[in-house]
């Protein structure tokens, strides 16, 4: 539209294509290829093998993967429960309370995740609540980090909700609790499902806060990938990254199936 001549169009598109390949395609393709490469000394990988992927799924890697999946699901569910409660409560709370609640929920995404981790490490390594050294501090860190997204997803869903339904329910004499359980929450189900999916996806790839708080007995897959990369095993690190992406995609697919089931009801 801006470029009227054939040559200038071709030049711009060529530069565009090159940039997209370098910036978007190459990194993704490289990790996928490295996961199945036996050697990579030239321009292209050689000795293609499934060995790294198999090794990524050995008992050690499998344990990390399971830790990641459990952390993501538990943190996702916890943050959706607290996040939607906070979003619903904030909507009916007086101004200052609303701003304080929503502001605190958004705080973890404005500061580096390592700071969130450091804060939890300091705050929960002493009474009244000692979580340090257990898996709960990792799960708590993930739940805190994804809270902002569940709160904003549910708040956006609330904004789109047609108030006519709850008004009708109230005018027919339904109590506030009944309106919430029978009208508002069912109408919010798509938002809650979307929030869960988002939370799980983000939690699966989290590194900064986890590396600050994790005990040796609860090592998530990204931390394992860092250990592999740090000792120079880039092929195995790539294979584990591919496993991480594949399992995340599977989890999201499963969650979207549950969501469409819920929509059918």
């Amino acid at each position, binding site marked *: 539209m801006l470029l009227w001549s054939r040559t200038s169009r071709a030049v711009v598109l060529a530069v565009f294509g090159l940039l997209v390949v370098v910036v978007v395609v190459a990194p993704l393709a490289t990790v996928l290829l490295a996961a199945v490469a036996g050697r990579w000394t030239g321009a292209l990988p050689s000795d293609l093998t499934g060995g790294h992927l198999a090794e990524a799924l050995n008992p050690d890697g499998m344990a990390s993967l399971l830790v990641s999946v459990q952390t993501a699901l538990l943190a996702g569910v916890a943050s959706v429960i607290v996040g939607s409660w906070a979003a619903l409560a904030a909507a009916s709370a007086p101004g200052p309370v609303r701003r304080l609640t929503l502001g605190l929920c958004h705080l973890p995404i404005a500061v580096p995740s*390592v700071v969130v981790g450091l804060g939890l490490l300091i705050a929960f390594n002493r009474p009244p609540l000692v979580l340090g050294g257990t898996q709960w501090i990792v799960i708590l860190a993930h739940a805190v980090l994804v809270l902002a997204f569940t709160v904003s997803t549910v708040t956006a869903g609330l904004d789109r909700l047609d108030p006519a339904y709850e008004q009708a329910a109230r005018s027919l004499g339904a109590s506030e609790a009944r309106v919430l359980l029978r009208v508002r929450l069912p109408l919010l189900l798509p938002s809650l499902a979307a929030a869960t999916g988002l939370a799980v996806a983000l939690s699966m790839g989290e590194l900064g806060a986890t590396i600050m708080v994790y005990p040796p007995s609860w090592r998530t897959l990204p931390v394992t990938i860092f250990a592999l990369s740090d000792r120079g095993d880039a092929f195995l690190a790539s294979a584990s990254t591919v496993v991480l992406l594949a399992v995340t995609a599977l989890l999201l697919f499963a969650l979207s199936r549950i969501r469409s089931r819920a929509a059918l009801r």
Partner: protein
Amino acid sequence: MTTLIADRPPAGPSAQRPALRLPVAVWVIPPLAMVLGFVGWPMVAVLGESVRDGDGALSLSSWSTVLTSSEFLGALGRTAQVAIGSTLGTLLLGSFLALVLAFVPFPGAGLVARLIDTVLALPSFLITLAFTFLYGSAGVLQALITSVAGPGARLPPILTSPLGVILAEITFFTPFVVRPLLAALSVLPREQLEVAASLGAGPLRVLRTVVLPEVLPALAAGGSLVLLLTLNEFGIVLFTGAKDVVTLPVLIYTRGVVSLDLPSAAVVATAQVVLSLLLYTAYRFGIARLRTESATSDPGEGASHAAVVAHQ
């Protein structure tokens, strides 16, 4: 008139559903208590830890030691350099990509836009992993250089340099600029461009005088989000593993976990939080202005927000 006024329900907050006063408080307090305890309290604990000496007494000794240490000042400078360099790079690259996607139609444009969105959902350390194979001393680029210029030609060791980190962050964060920019460009009236062009304005002039003023808020929103994210970025720098690229988040990690010096990690963390919150406030303020200025266009904030956590 009087009947009309009398028919209205009594105004003022005191009269609104007084029966619900207690349940609302009971309903609002638990989530507030939880975020205060699990989000607010750890932040306060960081501040508290930073002003404690070895015996647990109040002291500013950690602050004075850390703030004057060359390690902290070096990390501060490096963080600013990497963040500003990456932000400028993503703005340039992101603007070009978004402009081509919006104004130079070609088959497969939709696919490319979706591909760019995919990057938003990836963990950031993937980029560093890929860079080792692409631009490392035994990587693809080195192999290409050798095959063209002979075995003597060596690639400079950019991978572990600040420039390498900046390039990795540009690669990773460009979608955060493309997203809001594409949204702003998609609501730009095409007629304006065509009128300007038919009156004889060249493409660059159309861009500068017609397009730029319209998309400036989106560009500012995307740019300040990327500045915040690159300031806070941890995975890319950690995976690079370079001794001379130490940013504030990496310093917090090495002080807190590697050398177990919690008070000085807390000082660095507090300094970083102040910096990040200032930027975040500016970003939210910018977004709010953007919303009121163009209520019809979605600046893509939610979408770009979506990937923030995973990439730190």
